[in-house]
């Protein structure tokens, strides 16, 4: 376990307009863009969406390679979506007859459409997580969800939990590493054997890790109380989120994008 280069989430640090945007605006705009992707009624309507993605990626200074990495875990689902749609959708114009199956024009178009939709969803979401540090994202979420306090939704508590989790991931990783080494020194074997054997080998790692996590939780709760923590009420914040000009411009751009996507779907 290489502990020095843990990237929490997949944040790509850079100084760009996209990085500096208000996280709340970014979250809302992501949802809006997802809506736009679903509204795209034909392949032509994807053109402005893809153009928008390219422009924003360029602005964000995130390398294309980092963006594409987000697709890797989904490659199986993408291939399945494409192939299944290609062979099993109904259509009339036969493009290619393989004997056992036929590829029809309509199904080809739809297969491309569905795959493209999936790819765009993943890429836009990665763009959010690549340009926003997890803690800022948590902050934005808390602020967005705080109106739900009226119906007793624990927005502050949720955000506090998230940020404590983020804080303790490296600490617990370090501890897991230490326990693993200690157990290895006493002859534990974490690497060989089949899946079940290796899962079993994790028990002597997980038990002490859990015990210590509980002790840490108790200590931390005590320390937080000693520092006057008493929930979200009456709390002020060091960081204040502010919408600036760039955020409004981004909103207008996304609104235009949705309008164009709808128009293209209607005309064509």
């Amino acid at each position, binding site marked *: 376990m290489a502990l020095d280069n843990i990237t929490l989430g997949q944040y790509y640090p850079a100084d760009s307009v996209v990085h500096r945007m208000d996280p709340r605006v970014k979250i809302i705009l992501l949802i809006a863009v997802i809506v736009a992707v679903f509204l795209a009624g034909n392949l032509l309507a994807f053109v402005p969406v893809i153009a928008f993605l390219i422009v924003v990626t360029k602005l964000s200074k995130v390398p294309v390679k980092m963006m594409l990495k987000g697709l890797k875990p989904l490659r199986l689902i993408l291939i399945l979506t494409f192939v299944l749609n290609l062979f099993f959708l109904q259509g009339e114009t036969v493009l290619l007859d393989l004997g056992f199956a036929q590829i029809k024009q309509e199904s080809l178009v739809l297969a491309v459409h569905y795959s493209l939709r999936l790819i765009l969803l993943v890429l836009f979401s990665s763009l959010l997580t690549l340009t926003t540090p997890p803690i800022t994202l948590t902050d934005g979420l808390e602020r967005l969800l705080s109106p739900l306090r009226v119906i007793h939704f624990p927005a502050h508590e949720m955000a506090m939990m998230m940020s404590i989790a983020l*804080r303790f991931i490296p600490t617990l990783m370090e501890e897991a590493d230490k326990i693993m080494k200690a157990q290895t020194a006493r002859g534990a074997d974490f690497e060989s054997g089949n899946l079940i054997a290796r899962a079993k080998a994790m028990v002597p790692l997980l038990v002490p890790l859990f015990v210590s996590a509980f002790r*840490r939780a108790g200590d931390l709760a005590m320390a937080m109380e*000693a*520092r006057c923590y008493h929930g979200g009420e009456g709390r002020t*914040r060091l960081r204040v989120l502010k919408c600036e000009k760039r955020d409004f411009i981004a909103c207008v751009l996304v609104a235009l994008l949705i309008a164009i996507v709808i128009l293209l779907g209607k005309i064509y």
Partner: protein
Amino acid sequence: MAEPIIAVDHVSFAYEDGGPMAVRDVSLTIERGSFHAVLGQNGSGKSTLAKLINGLYIPTEGHVTVCGMDTQDDNNTWEIRRRAGMVFQNPDNQLVATIVREDVAFGLENIGVPTAEMPARIEKALKDVGMLKYADRAPHLLSGGQKQRVAIAGVLAMAPEAIIFDESTAMLDPQGRREVMQAVKRLNKEQGITVLWITHFMEEAVECDRAHVMYKGQIVLSGTPKEIFSDVSRIRPYRLDAPPMARLAEQLRAEGMPLKEGILTVDEMAEEVARLCK
């Protein structure tokens, strides 16, 4: 005598109703601006005493008064915790945020300090413990001593009048212990912050104003470090080791060297030996 900032009056505390008393009939007065140490082996009740002082535990019997406020009264809880801050043992388990600056802000956010005031208070607190240049680092990348100094800054930013250190150096290496001790001594001398230093390292107590030895939940000895440590045999029943220099002095005396009483630090020993060699 200066006015007492912390007054512990015949306090007893049991973790469970009818259970064994972790602290038994303890009385203690700490004057404003002083540096007190509480010594004791594991399980002597010294940590429980610390938590009784800032209202994390409420006495089963007796009263604890901080700046004139009784911890029994719920309305006082937050003000007491602000005025008498606390630094704990494990440096990892008391930092909340992923960035040093934000961790120092945590207490300020809790007590509702306006956002505009925060940066200046955070920077001053970090500067006072010599951690300003680490303000934007992640806590898990700091050393133990640095983490503890960040924890001190977190308390300091809230403008406390006293800070209770609950074995804050127990998990540190010698270098880290030195860093933290120096920072604390400076705060005590330069800013007049009252310090209650809880420890099982005897040598950390030699420079305090008053030391109290706890054993089985009671304070069994109180006095200046010289009074307590000069006679090594007095503290032995409480399973404490005298500071290394006090032990060395005792051995040398047994060998027939006429050393004076009350040698606790290396400097004092060097001075005394130099005097005898003349």
